[in-house]
Structure formats: structure tokens, C-alpha cells
């Protein structure tokens, strides 16, 4: 909030200026939300699945230490080299050292929000390693030098014409071509070359099974597999919260994930990686990066249950109207708004306020994270820590004083009404954000309290009052 140009409200306002873009952005995401509704209703035990998933995750978070060690032991036994990274710097250095040892200067990477958070691409490129994102949406965002705006649909905020323009500029497609199939075919040909020539492939991790030491990567494009199967060095980066105890639990999580994310019954590729091929090296990096700190915050620890399905973004009306980039954080939307303050409270102090607390997110969430309650709780923490915008503090103090003393409240009310009734321009001006796109309520002649004091007779009976809203003819807009 300190940096006015970067806060959510300002970035959202800029996004909203393009009304047509908001129309289809909102429409496209709502369509996915509806697909999710249809898919979830095909499973009668949907709510029980959510509950089970949520409880498994609770159990994992309470026993994370043990499950991580169990996973490490089993993965190591399988031949995976397991590394531990406390933060982005350590993570990036590990990736670089693996590549350097092999003399590899080119890597292909499938979707991984964690490596986005770590700014791995920038780090490697600075050191002379070329990285190409192989998820089509992430690839487009990379070409355009923008972070992903959505964790599942990284370039959902872009029109196909804009994507055509990016392809023309960077890949030399014909100018004006924006047909998605044509562009996808082109990208595919281009990426095929990348897959074949890259010796190293990095993937994200959706789930890691403690019991077996394997990890699961879900993609619709098969790009993670393509990279991994052709690579000589395979690296997986995972947040420490991605553990599930048993392989059998995947029956719950995979059903929830695809339906919540896109309304599909199953993700096209749910690939289990357990051990390296002959002659291949397989590395896995367990990354903390603020997660153990979040685990230590009782009111926010459940945010670590997230399986990154994106459903809370698709359902969030604020997200749909304001676009993912307005959250100025790798993970955007409601879940981003409860994760980001843990990473940098000052920088992300605005995000928990970028919500109406409508609660839709918490109720679509497949692992039942109480997202909107956590948004409320973050607001309390941010104010307590002194990161709320100054003006908000003053306004609220005045409000608390007014509402806690009945005398001043009714005086202010009358004064406020007098202003409304008599000099509307004093309130209805551009300094009042309410008035920009909304009329003020008409000030009535008397408040309810005044009416009540005038009409109420002891014993409960009151004079019949003239109904303020009697006949509909009077309502036609002037």
C-alpha cells in the first residue's frame, strides 16, 4: 500500500477500463466455474470427498516433519536425489549447480508456480542458462515477458489477437493470424525442437507420496512428460506441503483436482515419477520458502492445504473483474491474497482487502480452506502490524468513536442527511469514490429513530406510517 501505483485497487482500475476485456475475462472464467459445477454434481459424494481431502491435508500438516522424512527416505531408495532448500536463493542455486555439473546450458520447464515464485528463469538466464517454459500458456507469458495471471490458465487475460501478435513478433508467424488451432500447431512444432534438444527438464509437483517416494505431475498438454522422458537430467521442484501419506489418497485428490480446475473428469496426464531411467539423473528439491512460517500461524496454516486448482480464482468476482496481474503476486486471486502476506506483509498488505468476503472461494475449494475467514484475519494482522494505509486508519478511528457514542452518532447522522438534502454537490463530487459511478441515497426527512420516537406508544402499538415505497409508478427513473 505504501507504493500507491502498485496496489490492487489501482491495477484493477486500469484493467477495468477496458470494459470489453472484462466482459470476456469474466465470462470465460465464469464458464469454467460452471463446468466445475456440472462436473462436481456428477459425483454425489462430492462434499464428502472435499471433507476427506481437507482432513488428509490437516493430518499431513500436523505430521509434516515425519512425512517429509518418510518421503525423502523412500525417494532416495528409489534413486531420486533429494535436496532441501530453505528459500528461493537456495533452490535456484541447487538447480544451477546440477546443471553446471553436467555442463548444461539449456533447460525446458513445465508449469511450476514455485519456480515462478523463486524467479528461477531470471536467475538462470543471468547465468547463461536458457530456459523455455513448455506449458503453452506459460510459454506465451514468457514470450511476452509477463508473469502468469492465473495458476491454471496463465494467459487467460490475453485475447487471441494479442497472442497472434506475440507469435508474429517472437516466432515469425504471419501477421494477423490469431486462429488458436493454427497458433497452437505452430507452438507445438517449435516446442518439439525444444524437447528434443534439451538435456535437462524441470517440472513442478502436484503431489508427492510419502509411502512410495514417488511424485505426481498433472498436465493437460503432456509437456511435463515430453520434457522429462527426453531428458538426461530431470529435476522436480516442490513445496514441502505437497505431501500426501498414501498412494491410495490420489483417488481422492485427482478426482477433486481436475473437476475443480476445469470441470474435466481427470487431468489428461497424471504422471507418476518414481525412479530415474537407466542413465538418467533424477533430482527433487523440497522447498520451504515461507511455508514453515505459515504453518506456525494457527489462523493461516490451512492455506497450505491448497492443491492449486484455481477454482477460487474462477469463482471470485473480484478476480474475474480485475485480472490476475492486479494481485502483483505469482499466486493471484483469493488464495494468493492469503499466501502473499506471509511472504512479504508490507508489499502485499493490500491483497487481503481486495475482497468483499463473499465466501464463494471457501465453498468451491476442494480442500475446504476457509479462505474468506483468513482474508478477514489477515486484515486484523495487517492493521495491528501497522501496514494499513494511513487514511484508512483515521477514517476508522473516527467511525469507531462515532458509533460507540449514541449522542455523536445521531448528530452526525442528521448533519450527514442535511448535507445530502441541501448541498448534494458538496458530497457528490469526484473526491467521493462512491459517487463516481453511483448516486448517493436520498436523504429522508427523518430517520427511523426519529419516526419511532414520534410514533411509538408504550405497549408496542405504533401509528400507521405512510409507506415510503407505495406505488410503483413513482419509481420509474426520472
Amino acid at each position, binding site marked *: 500500500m505504501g507504493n500507491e501505483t502498485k496496489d490492487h485497487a489501482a491495477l484493477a482500475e486500469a484493467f477495468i477500463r477496458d470494459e470489453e476485456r472484462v466482459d470476456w475475462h469474466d465470462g470465460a472464467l465464469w464458464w469454467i466455474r460452471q463446468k466445475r459445477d456440472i462436473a462436481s454434481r456428477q459425483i454425489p459424494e462430492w462434499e464428502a470427498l472435499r471433507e476427506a481431502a481437507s482432513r488428509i491435508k490437516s493430518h499431513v500438516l500436523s505430521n509434516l516433519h515425519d512425512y517429509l522424512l518418510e518421503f525423502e527416505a523412500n525417494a532416495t531408495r528409489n534413486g531420486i536425489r533429494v535436496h532441501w532448500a530453505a528459500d528461493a536463493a537456495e533452490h535456484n542455486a541447487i538447480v544451477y549447480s546440477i546443471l553446471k555439473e553436467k555442463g548444461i546450458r539449456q533447460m525446458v520447464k513445465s508449469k511450476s508456480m514455485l519456480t515462478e515464485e523463486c524467479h528461477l528463469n531470471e536467475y538462470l538466464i543471468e547465468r547463461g542458462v536458457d530456459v523455455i517454459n513448455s506449458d503453452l500458456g506459460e510459454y506465451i507469458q514468457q514470450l511476452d515477458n509477463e508473469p502468469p495471471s492465473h495458476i491454471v490458465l496463465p494467459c487467460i487475460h490475453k485475447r487471441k489477437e494479442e497472442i497472434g501478435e506475440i507469435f508474429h513478433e517472437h516466432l515469425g508467424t504471419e501477421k494477423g493470424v490469431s486462429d488458436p488451432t493454427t497458433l497452437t500447431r505452430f507452438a507445438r512444432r517449435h516446442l518439439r525442437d525444444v524437447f528434443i534438444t534439451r538435456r535437462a527438464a524441470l517440472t513442478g509437483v502436484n503431489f508427492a507420496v510419502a509411502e512410495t517416494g514417488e511424485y505426481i505431475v498433472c498436465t493437460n498438454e503432456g509437456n511435463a512428460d515430453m520434457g522429462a522422458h527426453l531428458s538426461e537430467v530431470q529435476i522436480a521442484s516442490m513445496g514441502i506441503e505437497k505431501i500426501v501419506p498414501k498412494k491410495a489418497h490420489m483417488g481422492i485428490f485427482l478426482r477433486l483436482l481436475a473437476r475443480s480446475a476445469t470441470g474435466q473428469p481427470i487431468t489428461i496426464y497424471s504422471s507418476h515419477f518414481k525412479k530415474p531411467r537407466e542413465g538418467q539423473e533424477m533430482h527433487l528439491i523440497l522447498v520451504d520458502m515461507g511455508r514453515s512460517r505459515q504453518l506456525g500461524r494457527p489462523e493461516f496454516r490451512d492455506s497450505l492445504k491448497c492443491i492449486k486448482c484455481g477454482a477460487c480464482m474462477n469463482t471470485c468476482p473480484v478476480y474475474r473483474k480485475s485480472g490476475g496481474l492486479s494481485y502483483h503476486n505469482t499466486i493471484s486471486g483469493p488464495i494468493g491474497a492469503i499466501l502473499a502476506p506471509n511472504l512479504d506483509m508490507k508489499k502485499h498488505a493490500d491483497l487481503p*482487502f481486495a475482497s468483499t468476503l463473499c465466501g464463494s472461494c471457501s465453498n468451491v475449494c476442494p480442500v475446504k480452506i476457509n479462505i474468506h475467514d483468513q482474508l478477514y484475519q489477515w486484515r486484523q494482522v495487517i492493521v495491528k502490524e501497522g501496514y494499513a494505509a494511513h487514511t484508512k486508519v483515521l477514517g476508522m478511528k473516527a467511525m469507531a468513536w462515532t458509533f460507540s457514542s449514541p449522542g455523536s452518532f445521531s448528530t452526525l447522522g442528521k448533519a450527514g442527511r442535511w448535507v445530502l438534502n441541501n448541498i448534494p454537490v458538496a458530497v457528490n463530487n469526484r473526491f467521493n*469514490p462512491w459517487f*463516481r459511478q453511483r448516486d448517493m441515497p436520498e436523504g429522508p426527512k427523518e430517520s427511523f429513530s426519529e419516526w*419511532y420516537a414520534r410514533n411509538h406508544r408504550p405497549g408496542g402499538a405504533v401509528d400507521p406510517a405512510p409507506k415510503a415505497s407505495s406505488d410503483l409508478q413513482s419509481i420509474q427513473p426520472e
Partner: protein
Amino acid sequence: MNVALFLPCYVDQFYPQVGISTLQLLEKLGCTVTYPLNQTCCGQPMANSGFEKLAQDCNELFVKNFAGFDAVVCPSGSCTLHVKDHLHSHDREGDAQQIRSHIYELTEFLTDVLKVERLPARFMHKVGLHQSCHGQRGLHLSQMSELVAPPFSKPEKLLTMVEGLELIALDRKDECCGFGGTFCVFEEAVSSRMGIDRVEDHVRNGAEVLTGGDMSCLMHLEGIVRRKKLPVRVMHIAEILNQD
């Protein structure tokens, strides 16, 4: 039944007819209604802005005003939810607890406590119902579209008792309107855009009257309706249920 009427501060100040309709409706249905004159606000605007701590004086005043009734009834889901979830007192926690468990939003009070099955109301119009989120998802006044669970709706049940009233279907039946307390000014652009989209859903589907249980959302939507001069009237559900 001895009922205390709790009105959100902005209803008292800007929408007295909503308070009057609520009071008359409750009396019509046989309640003895008291309106504690010293009431101000439940403290929600502060708490939702992160200033829960500042709201403590409001809480104490609230307990003083509303202790000892059979029920506290409020024509706002949002304020009701806030009191239910957050009302605490230093010296009178027992009273605060009693209030928390006996405060009802108007429509749930009618359907669940008074068990109203018919209403002497008549309203010959096409009506669109705006489900305010705190009432719906917080107090479970209606089933939410996110869950795989059987549908129900307390406000709809009451509206269908009104003679002549035709409830219209919306494209998005429970999308937030974007009011959100101080969100409506701090995130003005998003708030307005959300409100515009909600209002247009009602207009597109032929609503003559847009109603709901929370005047705060309705004040925001009405502001948009009037600015855009749209052919729809905004009324609180108490006003409709009190029509005869």
C-alpha cells in the same frame, strides 16, 4: 414474543421505510417489538476493515441495548452474522452469548422461529432476488450454488407467499454485488463494475423490482440503478412482505 429490533445504522439514517416495514411486519405477526433508541452500529465496518479491536466499545453498547429480549431481529444478514460471530463483552459475556444465540436475520426469524406459512401480502410485480453473501453463505439463508447439496431458500419461500409476485430467474443466482463494506470505496472500480453486472442481470431477465435482505448491498445497487436510470426499482424484502 418480546423482540428487539436492531437496525443497521445506515437503515436508520437513510432507509427509515425499511425499519418501519420490519417493525410493522413483526407486529402484524404478533410480536411485541421494542426498538432500543441508543443503538448505533454492530461494529462490522470497522472489523471488516481490520479494526476489530476498535469495535469493542460498539460491542459493549450493543450488549447494553439488546440484552434480555426473547429475540433480536435485524433486517440485514450481514450485521446479524457479524454479531453472531464477533459480539463479546468484557463484563457481560453471558449477555453477549445470549444475544449471539438469539439474534436472527428477518427472513430466518419469520421462517424458522415464527414458522410463517402464509402472509397477508400482495405485490403484483416481477421480482428479482439478490442473495446477499453474508446472509446466504454466512447464515445459510439459502443454499449456495457452490455446494453439491439440496436447494432451499428462506427469502424465496417468503416471497412465494406473496400474492401476485412473480420471482424471476437470474443468470447468476448468487453472485456477489461488490458492496463489501469499505470495499465499495477503497476498491471503487471493482465494486462498481460488480454492481453494474448484477443490476444488468436483473434487468435483462425482466425484473421490475430488485429485492434482497441486506440494505447495504441494495444501497449500492440502487446507486447504480439511479445513476444509469435503469427501469428497475430497488426495495428491501421487508417492504415487499409488508405490502397489502
